């Protein structure tokens, strides 16, 4: 156990070193840009400039400081992304269940699932907006559609991965279909379900931000395009970039955390095998 802990911290240290390396490269670039450009902060500001702007109390837009602008818009975006994510998650799971229950549904739906993956759904954002007529609703719909595919494809793979021996055992126990699903199929698909969630959580955030750029009504994408056009301090742009990157990464790790909480009772061996497979 202790050795595992030591290994973990050393691995963490290496990641930290890599991040530091990126910071150093960024700063070297910023120094270089600062000498050759007239407005270096548009291209590559120093990291301390960005951090400074986070804590500055100067109002940049309708009496709000840069940080307040970022946080309020992020709140709006994340709420929509979150609702869409939950809806997509539920629909994806239900469809996977249907596909596993009825073979015909799988035959009909699976090719279309593949095609949905191929359709640039982010490119369809304007069309969904045209159909729903409500920017908030269309953001939710797109986040849901993007969440939907990875969740249902992975969950279906989870249902299919149940060993034949388990099916035989359930048959011997004279279990009915409902019992087979609640006792073996659903518990064993949970890790796969979370793999799908890990893929789709950053995608839901991306979708929500992208749809923001199409129309007003607040949100990170809206502020992103405004600050890019210099309607407010360019530092808002850099804060938004870092913040959205952070949210994307955190949403991924959040799913991992929830997975670990849910699967706490599972034997560690299975989890480790799964982690290696990921």
């Amino acid at each position: 156990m202790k050795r595992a802990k030591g290994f973990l911290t050393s691995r963490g240290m290496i990641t930290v070193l890599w991040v530091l390396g990126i910071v150093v490269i960024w700063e070297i670039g910023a120094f270089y840009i600062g000498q050759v450009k007239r407005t270096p902060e548009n291209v590559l500001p120093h990291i301390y400039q960005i951090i400074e702007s986070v804590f500055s109390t100067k109002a940049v837009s309708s009496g709000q400081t840069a940080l307040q602008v970022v946080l309020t818009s992020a709140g709006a975006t994340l709420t929509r992304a979150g609702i869409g994510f939950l809806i997509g998650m539920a629909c994806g799971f239900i469809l996977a269940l249907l596909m596993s229950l009825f073979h015909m549904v799988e035959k009909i739906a699976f090719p279309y699932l593949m095609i949905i993956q191929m359709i640039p759904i982010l490119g369809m954002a304007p069309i969904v907006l045209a159909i729903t007529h409500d920017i908030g609703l269309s953001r939710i719909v797109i986040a849901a559609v993007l969440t939907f595919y990875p969740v249902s494809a992975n969950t279906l793979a989870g249902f299919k991965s149940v060993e034949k021996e388990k099916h035989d055992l359930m048959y011997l126990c004279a279990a009915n279909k409902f019992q087979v699903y609640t006792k073996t199929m659903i518990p064993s698909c949970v890790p796969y379900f979370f793999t799908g969630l890990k893929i789709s959580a950053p995608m839901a955030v991306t979708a929500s931000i992208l749809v923001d750029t199409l129309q007003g009504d607040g949100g990170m994408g809206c502020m992103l395009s405004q600050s890019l056009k210099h309607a407010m301090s360019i530092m808002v742009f850099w804060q938004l970039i870092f913040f959205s990157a952070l949210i994307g990464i955190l949403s991924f790790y959040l799913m991992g955390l929830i997975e670990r909480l849910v699967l706490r009772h599972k034997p560690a061996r299975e989890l480790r095998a799964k982690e290696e497979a990921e």
Partner: protein
Amino acid sequence: MRKKLKKGTVSSIVAPVLFGVFLFVLWQTQVLHQLFHTDTFTLPLPSRIVTIIFDNLSKVMINVQATVIVSLCGLILGSLLGYLMAIIAVVFPKGGVGGLNVVSAFNAIPIVALAPVITNWTKDVSDDASVRSMIAKILVVMVVCTASMSVNAYRGLKDVKPFSEDLMKTYAAGKFTTFVKLRFSNSAPYVFTALRVSVPSSVIGALVSEYFAEYIIGVGRQIRENIVLAQYATAWAYIVVACFIGILMYAVLMIFESILLKHRR
């Protein structure tokens, strides 16, 4: 047995096709419009979309070309970079694995955040707006494709069959020979697993990065431009084209995979 298999494949082709025809009929007869409470202006009829594509075929092809070049170049460069990262991680396990972690963290950064930044950075690359925005778009797609390739290829290079490594040792093969003969060929299926993820995402990355690019070209940009002008029928035409690009690239990948991995099955 053979007959049964054939019957299965036939029904698995017929069922989805029937469903597609059903949807198509609903769309063309405007039942879909009533369902969504919309009109033929925002959701044009399929016949009209197809007419628009064929009427503007030359213009459509220019945009398709731009998008395909961006997504293919980005895909190839990103995959090569990802594979290189995987090789580094296998050769230098201590530092390299941390690098892989950082790369997969990059994957979680939304494309919308990446695209404007890279457009900013590539302003000085060329005086020609079409060239520099092309480079910016390729770089975005490259970043999108690197992560899945590096993670999958690392697994492929690492997970060789338990005794094959010992076998290579008994042959007195050097590290380099082991790498080329054993690890390299072992990683091939994993490379295709990675490509299955990154081909669709390269197309999507190209479409989205076009939104933020300086030079107005590409299928994704045309979707957006036409929406802004409220020309929904034209926008739909480009959406259909975008779907075709994605499906076609995926199909090409599948064909390549079935040819190259034929001996493994």
